């Protein structure tokens, strides 16, 4: 009887003790919020090292891209404590800084000797700074990303297609360097029979609901001469947003949509693009670089069958690409700032950043991307580097959301629905954006 009692007491104590230990561990757990995509899975893997080193557990709250902005902006606006760390989209930085959602990191960076000079300049401007081009940092560049292209190297290298293409267009079929070339290739493949299947020219962004068509159209418009504002007079958009060159760029995007996309591709964004490419529907595929590791590994279209190229040049030779990607920030409403900052410090470490790249994340650290071995480290590494060198980003204003909604509507109305002209769409955009900035008291 006595021994049974002892055993029971022992078990009870063990249970109490284990609960206490587990509670103590849970008290240190950090929750990191991000989008649900391949890089997030890589981050889960990477973060195991952080837990090993510090004993701080990591929990993750990943939300599909379609709900990512809604979910987390609601969380931040309602001062929620769900996220201790957040990898927020580049456009959020202005609003998050002005509304006090993120902890300013300048003092922390100074104390920990983390220098923004060690990161790719475009990512610092895009993901960390607000106001732009000032040394006020609200995030550490976490996931470099940019719109680029993949193509079916195996189709491009078919001798009969090469011969036919050369005869038709007078130049060798290969990755395009200009948008005109891109359209010619897309036209060439549109509705062609390859291996007994009808294929199409290109998958481009046309999504209406969130940001898809804006990211796609901008990818072309920048290289045609679009500018957000007069470089000498902020918020003056007339003649810049709707310049003759911008009009030509938007006309080109519509022409590409009309001539060379798969049937029903009127609401296509990252996921739909990947599906179109993976299912062997398209010869070329516009998408953010984060999709490349997954495509490279794909049994049907990856390996030797896939190639990568940088967003082509516009008619005047200008070449830009739409910036994607995000920085990692500490949420000001979290009660665990100290642990969250430990994570940022750990994440900024060179070895961690090198592992991040090897797992499928895109490091923004110069030491990683400027390493002599980097271009050969993956088949897409050089295209990523070249793309990151020519990036431009959408308005990062606190009012980025209504600005984005306006461009979504204007572009979709013209490109997909065929309503009005490119000039009408861009004139309308100037009107909408002017209204937004007037509401903000900036004009």
């Amino acid at each position: 009887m006595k021994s049974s009692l002892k055993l029971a007491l022992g078990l009870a104590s063990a249970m109490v003790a284990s609960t206490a230990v587990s509670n103590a561990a849970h008290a240190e757990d950090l929750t990191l919020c991000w989008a649900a995509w391949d890089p997030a899975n890589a981050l889960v893997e990477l973060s195991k090292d952080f837990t090993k080193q510090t004993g701080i557990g990591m929990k993750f709250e990943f939300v599909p891209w379609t709900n990512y902005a809604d979910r987390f902006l609601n969380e931040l606006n309602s001062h929620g404590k769900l996220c201790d760390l957040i990898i927020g989209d580049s456009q959020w930085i202005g609003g998050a800084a002005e509304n006090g959602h993120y902890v300013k990191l300048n003092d922390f960076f100074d104390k920990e000797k983390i220098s923004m000079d060690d990161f790719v300049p475009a990512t610092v401007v895009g993901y960390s700074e607000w106001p732009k081009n000032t040394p006020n940092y609200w995030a550490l560049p976490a996931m470099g990303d940019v719109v680029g292209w993949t193509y079916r190297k195996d189709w491009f290298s078919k001798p009969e297609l090469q011969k036919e293409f050369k005869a038709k267009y007078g130049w060798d079929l290969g990755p395009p360097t200009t948008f005109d070339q891109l359209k010619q290739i897309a036209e060439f493949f549109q509705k062609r029979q390859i291996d007994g299947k009808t294929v199409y020219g290109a998958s481009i962004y046309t999504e209406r609901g969130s940001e898809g068509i804006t990211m796609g159209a901008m990818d072309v418009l920048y290289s045609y001469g679009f500018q957000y504002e007069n470089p000498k007079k902020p918020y003056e958009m007339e003649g810049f947003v709707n310049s003759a060159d911008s009009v030509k760029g938007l006309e080109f995007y519509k022409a590409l949509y009309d001539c060379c996309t798969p049937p029903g591709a009127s609401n296509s964004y990252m996921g739909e693009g990947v599906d179109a490419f993976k299912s062997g529907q398209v010869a070329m595929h516009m998408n953010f670089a984060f999709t490349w590791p997954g495509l490279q590994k794909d049994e049907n279209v990856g390996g030797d069958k896939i190639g990568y190229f940088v967003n082509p040049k516009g008619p005047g030779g200008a070449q830009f690409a739409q910036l994607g990607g995000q920085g990692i920030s500490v949420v000001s409403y979290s009660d665990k700032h100290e642990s969250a900052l430990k994570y940022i410090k750990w994440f900024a470490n060179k070895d961690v950043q090198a592992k991040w790249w090897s797992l499928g994340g895109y490091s923004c650290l110069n030491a990683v991307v400027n390493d002599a071995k980097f271009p050969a480290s993956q088949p897409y590494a050089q295209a990523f580097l070249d793309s990151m060198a020519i990036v431009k980003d959408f308005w990062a204003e606190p009012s980025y959301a209504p600005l984005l909604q306006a461009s979504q509507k204007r572009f979709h109305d013209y490109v997909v629905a065929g309503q009005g002209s490119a000039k009408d769409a861009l004139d309308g955009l100037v009107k909408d954006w002017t209204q937004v900035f007037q509401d903000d008291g900036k004009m």
Partner: protein
Amino acid sequence: MLNRTAENVARATPEQLARKVRGVSDRGLAWLFISPTILLLLAINIFPLFWAIYLSFTNYRANRPNEVVKNLGFANYQRILGDQDVWIAMQTTAHFVFWTILLQTLIGFTLAWLIDRKFRGHAFWTTLILVPMMLSPAVVGNFWRFLYEPQIGLFSYVISFVSGIPPTSIQMLSNVSLAPWSIIIVDTWMWTPYVMLICLAGLRSIPEYIYEAAEVDRASNWRQFWSITLPMALPFIMLAVLFRGIENFKMFDMVNLLTGGGPGSTTEVASITLKRQAFESWRTGYSSAFAIILFVAVFGLANIYVKALNKVKQR
């Protein structure tokens, strides 16, 4: 039995509480019972309504909690009523409401009339027809999106089989002219059974002796339908129209799932515009004013309609 239960309850009630309850009037007791509901109603419906009315006169934005909230008077209302896009969205909404109600009423009443014949297996067919109504709109939206797929969708294949047009040319969700109809088709498919149920209730409520009297008078089937069936079922049909009208004026889920308002803004109904302004552009004050306008429009139209319905019932 009931009395015995009441006596047991009375006996089990502590004396102190029983004395207190005994002192409460019937009216007081009624208020006591309904007060939780009233409080919930105030908290969930009435307070948000008044709060939205207040916000509609301000420049408040939910994503700028630190910003000073300014009173704008009627500026938000003025801006909405002067905004061409809002009027286009209202026209789109009216288009959906008109066609969905027309089709659902015609098909729903016809189905109810056929089911009312009580043929062999009518119970099975009634259950089968009701299935779409029982599905979640999210399931229906995704299901039909696949059916409409130009490359793999069954809908395109069937149309192609019948018409000879290549399936890839039948782009129901991408084509500006077809996209509104793609939503009307799905909404009609889903909600016609609901109209049918209401109409069936109406048809079953018509006393059999009226038809027997008409038979005695040698009234033709058409005459019986025109003079008995339709007038007596009319209040039920009008009720179905009222319910579907209110629902379809607020139509959101189906449009959002099928087209998201596109292509362009072709299928952007008022509720989609409202959602974009409120939760994507974060113009909380502006969207509150828009919501109030929509509420007043539905409330006003429904009121006029209910008056007409009452007149029909009194005939």
